[in-house]
């Protein structure tokens, strides 16, 4: 998770589309939470949320709340759309990005930072959702391989 946060801070944050950027931590959390065998997704969301809250200037631990909400969405989708994990990944990515960015927007507004809604939506939230959507498929493939490596399938002989 530390490596992901470093990649996010050093590389991904410098590659904007308009003014939105992808969130590699969010993508990995969503992909990890969608894996059927994984049981500690909440724990990883907690760790990621605390780490991003420490690094970011976002107020009120909003990254922590955002990541917990996103993992919640992913776990619900994993139970209901378990036959189509790719579709669940797409939906969770777009939904999670929107939820997280709206949460950030509200937190900054409450904190007193003036943010115009139209610009926030068109320049940050939607481009971020698009970038996350583009990256969701390769990230899902990598995380699936990682999950299969961490939790190998048990074969009865």
């Amino acid at each position, binding site marked *: 998770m530390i490596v992901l946060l470093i990649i996010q801070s050093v590389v991904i*944050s410098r590659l904007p589309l308009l*003014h939105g950027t992808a969130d590699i931590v969010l993508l990995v959390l969503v992909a990890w939470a969608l894996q059927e065998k994984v049981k500690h997704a909440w724990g990883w969301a907690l760790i990621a949320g605390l780490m991003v809250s420490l690094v970011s200037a976002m107020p009120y631990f909003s*990254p922590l709340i955002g990541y917990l909400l996103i993992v919640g969405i992913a776990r619900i989708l994993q139970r209901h759309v378990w036959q189509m994990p790719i579709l669940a990944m797409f939906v969770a990515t777009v939904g999670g990005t929107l939820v997280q960015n709206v949460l950030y927007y509200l937190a900054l507004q409450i904190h007193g930072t003036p943010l115009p809604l139209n610009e*926030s939506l068109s320049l940050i939230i939607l481009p971020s959702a698009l970038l996350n959507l583009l990256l969701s498929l390769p990230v899902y493939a990598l995380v699936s391989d990682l999950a299969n490596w961490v939790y190998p399938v048990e074969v009865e002989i």
Partner: protein
Amino acid sequence: MNLPFRRYWQTTLLVLVVIGILVLALSGYLGPLLKLALDPLVGAQGWLSSRYMAVYEFVTVPRDVASLRARNAQLEDDVSGLQTQVIQLQQQQRQAQVLYALLNFARANPENEYVAASVIGRDPSPFLHYVLIDHGSDDGIRHGMPVVTQQGLVGRVDAVTAGAARVQLINDPGSQINVKLQSSQTEVMLNGSITGDINLGMIPQDLNLQPGEVVLTSGLGGNYPQEVVVGQVVSVRKRETDLFQTASVQPAVDFNSLQAVLIITNFTPVNVTPLIPTTSP
């Protein structure tokens, strides 16, 4: 004739023939004859030699190709190593240029004490414009210290750990700075935005503001030292119905390519929050 006499004449004749041939060869009369006799031999030797070399190459070339391939691979390794060195040296040269520029700026402003730091990351949230630097409280950096480069104002330290710090850039949407216009010395307010643009607000309507005007920090509010360059006015928006004019400012610092910064460590920001009047319950 007896036998010794015959042998004597044969030997004498042979010697005379040899001498005659030598005389003919040395005088050059034998050349055409020799050419006529040697040409077929030379041709045959050339043919044989070329066939021999063909067979020799057929036998030995595979070994040479293998050695050439090995040599080629070694040379390619050398080239890639040298290219890596060139890239590293170019990076070091760029870093050195940045540091020299910062050093010159620090020498030109001896009234301030500086700590140089490298930019190591950005805030993960796209809503915010913050950078992370590689120096913290162990190096004397404290909350609120102004951050500059040789070009102008960058921002101020927002949070500090032992070995790193977070800097709020002046183009962050939460940033508000008291600045003044160089020519008129008029105090105005500079605001950041989510797009990274910076704008001037609270400009009096009667002020004749022109593009190209230099914007400096005013020192009001106690958060920044005075007379630090912020940028230049690019465009002015003036409407009769508004109370104030607004203007777009081109920052002096390119925040996208920010590599190293200077933190002014002998400037103590003033906390004016207790002096702001609040409504009593």
